[in-house]
Structures are given as C-alpha cells and as structure tokens.
C-alpha cells in the first residue's frame, strides 16, 4: 500500500533526523530521502499507476510528508549552524585586558603645552606671536631697553657673554624692540621663548628658562587698561577669577613699572605657607612702555603709549604641576616627561 509505505518512510526519516549528530549526516538524509532521486521521488514515480482519485489523496499525503521532513531538516540544520557559529565565536575569545601592541601617544613637553595654551589666549585677543633669537646684541638686550652700560640694573640679570661680542638674551624683552620695528603702531604682540641667566643651578634656580613677553601699543593706553587686561588674562590662564594688585617695581624699560601680585590661589588671601602668610603671590613685572623704548622702536611716544609685561612660563608650569625641582624640565628624563 502506497499510503502505508509513505507514512512509514516519513516516520522513519523523522526519527533519523532527530537522531543525527552532525550536519553531514543530516545532509546525507536529505539527499537520500528528499533528493531528486530520493525515496520520496521514487514514491511519487509510482503515482502514475494510481487512479485519479487515489492520486489526489496520495499527492496530498506526499506533499504533507515532504513538508514535514523539510521543516524538520531545516530546523536541525539551523541548530547545527548556530552551534557551529557559537563554537567559532567561543574559540575567538580575546583577552582585551592585555596591552595593545604598537606605539602609544608621545607627550608634549609641559612648557610646549602651556605656551600653546597661552599663545591661543593671546591670539584670541588679537595678539600676534613673534620669535626672537637666543643670541642677542648687547644693544637690543640692554641699551634699547633703557639699560645703558654700567647701569646697576644690569646686575639684576647675570649675563652669559659670548666670544662674538654678543650675549645670550637675559629676557624676552628684546623682542619688544624687534616687534615695534616690524609691526609699527598700533600693535599687540607676544614673544615666548628661551632666556638665559648666568646662575648656579639648583632645585629652584635655572640658567635656562622660559618667558613670555607681551606688549600692546596704541593711542592712550593707560595703567587702568593694563590692570583690566592682566586680570582678564590671568583669570583665563588660571581658569578662575583672579584678584590682582599692582605695586611699584623698578624695570628700566617701563615707566611707571609695577610688580603684579595675584591673591594667593591656595588660601584665597587668608595667608598660607605658599604666599608666606601675605595673602599675595608675586607673579609678573609689567608697566607702561618707557618713552625711550618706544622711540628706539620707531614709535612716537607723544602719539602712542603702551604697556608691556613679562610672564614666567617656567614658573607657571611649576605652579600648575607642583613641580618642585626646576632641573627636571630640561633633564631629558622620559620618566618625568611622559607624565604630561
């Protein structure tokens, strides 16, 4: 009986599908039973021998058996594929806590970083940035800044003198002279750079350090402008509101000259060891540009006035990172430098 034959085949095949253990066995069953020359195909060959009525009944049975077996096959196949994928993924386990191979980021020197940060502030305020040479003429370093030979103010800056008759600049102020000549009034400029003092080196003294000179020349620049400007700038540098005060200070290239103090950022003026209990920390020298200096820069002091200041970049770096030994900055020790 063809019906019996069919149902037996379907039941046996279903049992075999359920029992396979590999995808290959499953495929073999598919070919054997459902393939073009498979057992179901053979059964369907005999269909022609049946009566049209029988043919309709058996045809339905045949299709149902085929459908059932295909579903069972697909389900098993999917299960095998999923298991295979899961196994592959499992094999692909990676220890992501292991270090990444290849090269990590290097570090910029802390002085480079603070200099860039401050340059950007100034540029945003319309200042240009100028460079000057490390080796300067005596004239630019001293005379043009109103410090003639044998002036006692030269004692303030122990100088490295050179075999060619020149010197290593003791401050970035000579760039004022170069800047005035290059830019002409009105002008706003800064000059960051390396300066030199002939001093013994220890944890708090260096013969090589970094300053940033700033200058603004325009009509009617006043002390009140200077105070406003320095307060704005220092608040930006320290990223908080800073209280400043000016008091007299002597620097031959400014008149009047000031020492600018900021209220101690540690104790907010209450007094602490950092500010030596005074509530104030001396931060930078500044003043109105001396008329002699303007004149030597080719600017008429009757028409223009200006202010100038010198910011100690090395000092700012040491303050920001609480560095207690200035020699680290030029020691070339990567254990120090990679911290920034």
């Amino acid at each position, binding site marked *: 009986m063809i019906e019996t034959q069919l149902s037996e085949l379907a039941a046996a095949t279903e049992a075999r599908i359920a029992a396979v253990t590999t995808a290959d066995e499953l495929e073999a069953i598919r070919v054997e039973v459902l393939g073009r020359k498979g057992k179901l195909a053979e059964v369907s060959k005999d269909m022609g021998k049946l009566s049209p009525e029988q043919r309709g009944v058996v045809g339905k049975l045949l299709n149902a058996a085929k459908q059932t077996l295909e579903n069972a096959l697909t389900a098993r196949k999917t299960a095998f594929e999923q298991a295979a994928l899961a196994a592959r993924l499992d094999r692909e386990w990676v220890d992501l806590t292991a270090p990444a191979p290849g090269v990590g980021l290097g570090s910029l020197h802390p002085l480079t970083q603070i200099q*860039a940060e401050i340059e950007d502030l100034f540029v945003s305020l319309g200042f240009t*940035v100028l460079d000057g040479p490390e080796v300067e003429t005596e004239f630019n370093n001293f005379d043009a800044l109103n410090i003639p030979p044998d002036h006692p103010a030269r004692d303030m800056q122990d100088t*490295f003198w050179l075999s060619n008759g*020149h010197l290593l600049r003791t401050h970035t102020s000579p760039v004022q002279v170069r800047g005035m000549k290059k830019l002409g009034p009105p002008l706003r400029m800064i000059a960051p750079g390396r300066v030199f003092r002939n001093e013994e080196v220890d944890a708090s003294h260096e*013969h090589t350090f970094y300053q940033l000179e700033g200058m603004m020349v325009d009509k009617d*620049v006043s002390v009140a402008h200077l105070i406003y400007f320095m307060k704005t700038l220092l608040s930006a540098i320290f990223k908080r509101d800073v209280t400043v005060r000016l008091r*007299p200070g002597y620097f031959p290239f400014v008149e*009047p000259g000031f020492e600018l103090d900021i209220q101690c950022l540690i104790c907010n003026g209450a007094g602490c060891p950092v500010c030596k209990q005074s509530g104030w920390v001396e931060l930078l020298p500044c003043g109105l540009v001396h008329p002699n200096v303007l004149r030597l820069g080719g600017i008429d*002091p009757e028409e223009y006035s200006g202010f100038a200041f010198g910011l100690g970049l090395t000092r700012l770096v040491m303050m920001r990172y609480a560095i207690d030994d200035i020699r680290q900055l030029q020691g070339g020790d990567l254990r120090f430098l990679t911290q920034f």
Partner: protein
Amino acid sequence: MKFSYNWLAEHIDGLTVPPAEIGKLITMKTAECEGVEAHGAHFDHVVVAKVLTAEPIPGTHLAVTSVDTGRYGVKQVVCGAPNCRAGMLTAYVPPGHLGVTTAKLRGVDSDGMLASAKELGISAEDEGIIEFAEGEPGAAIAGCTADTIVEIDNKSLTHRPDLWGHHGMAREVAAIAGRPLKSIPADLPEGAPAVEIEIRDAKLCPRFSALRFENVTVQPSPLWLQQRLESVGLNPINNIVDVTNYLMAELAQPMHAYDAAKLQGGKIIVRVAEEGEPCPALNGQTYTLDSSNLVIADAGGPVGIAGVIGGGPSAISDATTTILLEAANFHAASIRKTSTKLKLRTDASMRFEKSQDPVNTVRALARAKWLLEQVSPGIRLVGGLADLYYPLPEVAPISFDLSWMRRKLGKPDLTAAEVTAILTSIAFGVSEADGHFTVTVPSWRATKDISLKDDLVEEVGRMIGYGNLTPVPPLVPSVVPPLPPERAYLRGLRQLLTAQGYTEVYNYSFVNEAQATELGLPIEDHVRVVNPIAQGQELLRTSLLPNIKRNINDNAREYESFRMFEIGKEIHARGQELPEEIPHLAAVSFERHGDGVANLFELKRLAGTIAPSCTVEPAEARPFEHPFRSAKVILRNEAIGRLFEFHPAMVETGRAAVLDLDLVKVQALRTAAGKYKPLRRFPTSAFDLTVPTAERELAGTVLGFIREHAGSLALDVRYLYDYKGDKGRSMTFRITLGAPDRTLTGDEVTAIRSQLLAAVAAKYQ
C-alpha cells in the same frame, strides 16, 4: 637694605603708623619690603645689675655670682665671663628673654644671665660681659631700645639713590602717612678751607667736601649708636668710623675719615690711577689699579679708592688725634666699573653706583660734626669747610597737562589739587595753572631717576595707590593678528610627532668641549661663552645631537625601548655678526634588543610624513654614525637632514636610530596642495616584476631604473619585497599602467612589459 623703625620715626613729626604696618605701606607705595622683624625686644626687660659677689666654681671657668638687679631683686647667676668680678656694673637678662631659662649649671642654680654686648645685640663684642661705667641696678640699658627692622629688597631701590638712607625713606613714609618730615640742617661755621682739594676730572668727581677735626678721642661709641648700627647690619668699630657709617645709613652719603696725621702734603687730589699703581686698602688687601679707577691721593700716592674703600695706612686707629672727614660725590658708572673689576662691593660703592646727590655732601658733614661732638668729647673743628663743586647740569622743570596725566593713569576724575598735594609731599616744586603743571625735581631725585613727565606718572600713581584705579577694558581695533607661519608649522609638527609616539625633550643650548669633540664637531665653529660659571656651558650647540646622545644613554638605563624628539635651535657662528639660528628636529627611536632595522625604517617613514616625497640616499658616515647605516634625506634635490643609527661606541646599550632634519629647509621645500586633478575614468593594469640583483644593490636605484624604462604610461612603480636565497638576492616591484583617455589593451600592456623586461635583463642579467 635694613631700616630701623625708631630711626625713621625720629625723622618724622608725629608718626603714628604702627611698626607692623609700615612694611606693607612701603611695599604698596615705594619699594618691596622683604620682611619686618622685631629687634631688641628684650631691652624692655634687661636691666643694669651690680655684681655683689663672684666666687669661682672649683674645677671650672665659671663663677657663681650674686647680683643686685634692682627691680628683679638679688639673684644668683652662674657666669663664665673672664671679666666677671664683684663690684662691676653689667647687664642682667631675666629668664624668659633671649632664650634664657632658670637652670642648674654644674649643680649650681642660675636664675638669669649676665650678658655680653653681642648677646644683647649691641655690637659684635663677645670677649666678656658688658661693663657699664655708671648706672643704677634695675635701670634700663641707657640708649638701647626695642625696635622694629624693615628689610627692603635692594633691587627695588636701584633707581632711588635717596632711599639708601633712613632720611630718604622717612620722606616716603611721611608722605604716605601724611605727616611732616623733619629737616636736617646743613649749617657749618665759616672758616678757611681745612685742606686744599684738586679734582682732575669733574665728570668723575663732581664734588669733594671735607672738614678737619683735632683733639679727637678714638673710643667705642655710646651704646645707642652701637645698637643702631648693629640693628641695620653695620658693625660698630669706633666712634669716628661709626659716625661715618651712621651718616651713610641715614643720609645715603658714604663718608670716609682719614687720620690727618698720616696724610702727606697739604693737598687732596682726586685723579685716575696710574697703570699698575698699588693701593693698600683698609681691609688689608692691596689693589693694583689702572686708569679706569679713580683714587683719592695725597703727595705720597693713593689714600683710597674713590667711592669704594679707604686706604690702610691713613685709617683711623686708637692713636689718631686729628681727622680729615670726606664727603664726596662720584660718577656712578665709574664706581660701578671699578667695584666690578676689583670684585669689591662695599656699602659705599653700592650707594655711589645709584647716582648719589652731590648736594648732599655738605649736609652730611654738618650732621657729622654735630654727632662727633657727642661721641668724641672735646673734639674741635679746624678751620672751615673745604668744598670743590662742579654742579651737574640741572634737570629742566617738567611740564605736563592734567589731562595727559589722567589719560596715562586711566583716572578721569584725578584733580589738579591731588596731583599738587602728592608731588609736594615728596618734595617736588609744583606750579599749576588751568591744569598745566610745571614741576621742579629735588636734587636727590634729579641725578638719574626723574627727568621726564612719564617719571611723574609713577610718583602720582603710586601715591594714589594703583588699587584706586578702576580697571578699564582697552579700546582696540578688532583685527586678525598676522601670525608667522613657522609657529603654526612647528606646532603641527609637534602634534604629528607625539601622535606617532615620540615624547618631547628640551635640552640646554650649551654643550661642553668634550661633547663637541666626541661627535667630531669642530670647536672653532661654535660660539663660545666667555664667562661660564659651571662646567658644560662653554659652547653653544651647533647640533642637537650631543645632548640627544646624552638623553639616549640616560634613558636607556630605564627603558627597553623609547621614542623621543627635540625641536631646538642650532647656533652657528658667523664671525662678529649674530650667529645663524636654525631650528632642527632630532627624533630618536631606541631599542635595547633587536637588530635596529625596524627603528631605522620607522624613522624613514617618519621623514616621509614630515616631508612627503623625500628620498633617502646613502651617505658617507660621520664618525659617530654606524658606518653602514647612515643616509642623507633629500627633498627636491636638496639635503634636508640625516637618517642614521648611532655608532655602537656611542650608544653601547642598544640601537638608537636618529632622524635629524633642518626645519628651515623642510618648510621652504614642502609644497602646498595645488590644483586638483580629475579622478581617473579608465581602469589601470598592473603586473609584478622580480629583478635579480647583487647583494648590496640599492632598492632605490633599481626602482629608479624601472621607472625610467617603464615608459610614459607607467603611473606608479613600487617596491614590494625582496628575497635572499641561495642564488642571491632578488627584488619584486609592481608596475601600474594606465592611459588617461582609454583602457589599455592586453597587447599594449604586454608590449610595455616585454620592453621593460628586456631593459632590466640587460642591466641586471
């Protein structure tokens, strides 16, 4: 410079500012105060005491004394002073002062201390306990008082000759406190000049004034004078010298007293020294002088180095009975030059180099006469003032308008009355009409300090107080600042380097001779430092490499591998001109283990990212380079730097590859992006070609050969890899062909390939 509060107060009528506040006031208005400290607070408690008995303690140098201290009663005190004896009057310090406590010495109770002049802070005398000729037990030590010492930063007095004495500082304090300054008379009796004076160069010595005294008694100064000098850091010596020092500290006028009996001839000559002329000085040294030094001379030669130090033979001694007292004025720069050259900075030279006021000499002599009469009883003036004076050119009156002063300070509500009051309070002569000022400068501010109207802005501003100015935003044009492209370039370069793992180092601009020699850098190419104070600062670097090499070896002790770079300036001598300063990059890749090849190629790749399209060409190695790992870096046919590995003798612990680029050249030769090229519309064809070569054939050379022979349709030729086997070395290249206007046919490609193969075969077998 130390200032005594009591001394300042003596010059001011009714000073009420308490000592604790005076330092802050001076700091805010005049000069930087470095500290305020109490001096001699114990004088409120120390008393005169009479030693009643003094019994030696056997086996020691000590004595147990019984002293009558008046207000503290009779006390038992153990004392070790050699001069301690019954009957003497000395000073008693009760427990609780000067660190004295009630104690047991050698088993004997001691309640307080008998003190020396040094322990009391009166003088340096510490041979024994102080001894008084008179006094009642229990009385305070006559003339000695508690004081407050204000220390002012010398640098902030550089421009103020007048502030090197108490009277000048008192003028400031009086003005700040709004009290009148007491004047010091300059009157002297008439009389024939006591000595003949000759000044050979009035520029170097504008004024020389002198008085002669006889019947002089040289003895210790009274205690008040000793204590006062001691309190401001001057050592009491004897009454005569102490008077000169007192006036220096009071009027900022250095003075000198000569033993008149030791001066030869009747004349004082102020002249430049002769070449090699010796001058024995009162510090025991003999200085050899030249024509840049000014001397005070008598008929026998120099008796002092002008403005710096007095002579030895004519110094005041116990035997002195007549003195010549000098108060002179000298050219500031000349004194500074001499003192620098002789390495002799004295209290006198420090003052003279600030341009002292020539008007001051006579006032100082008058004050000295008054003081000498107190400290040397019976002293008599002989004759009158000797005074040779070549007045300095006067400072013209300074004119300015109130509106100008307002604009400079940024204080629009400043009034003429305020300006007048301030300038008058510090002794300027002021006349004002309708806001127009004419100001005369007092002599002590006129020597150098004040000559311009701008100088007066400071005077007015500081006395108003800068804190009383309202900060105002400046009105400036809004412009995009012109930024030099180098800065942006260097900033970008630094970012590129750190992104590739390199850490930035900063090195000094100095190298020492040994470092330069080690790398074969000619010493004579360097700019030399004339006055280095430490080793290692003799030369300015003509290369970053000596210090980089040091960085490598230092860090090799800590790291197995590292990458670092420096951007800094090479400084190349150009005779007397300013040297050429060339920014360079030195980048290093170090590996302790391994063959170093990867490090070199890493730096080659780095060069390519910094200077795209640069090539590398083998170069003869310099002595510090690995002889077979050294090359020039070329950009547009110009050498822009060097790629090499340090010779193992230089870096022994590993392999250090270095890229050294001249950043001026790199910037000059790099090209900006130009006009865009349309993208290809037709496909390309590529084929690989393997070329058998000699072992040390250069890939760059073979590549160049292929490129040259591949024809105009070769879009790209690139090296893929090489192979070293039994039959030698071969290199494989990939050639990409394409035409702009069509797709190449297979025949075309084959033709080009065959042609190239033939050329390669002819050249490389």
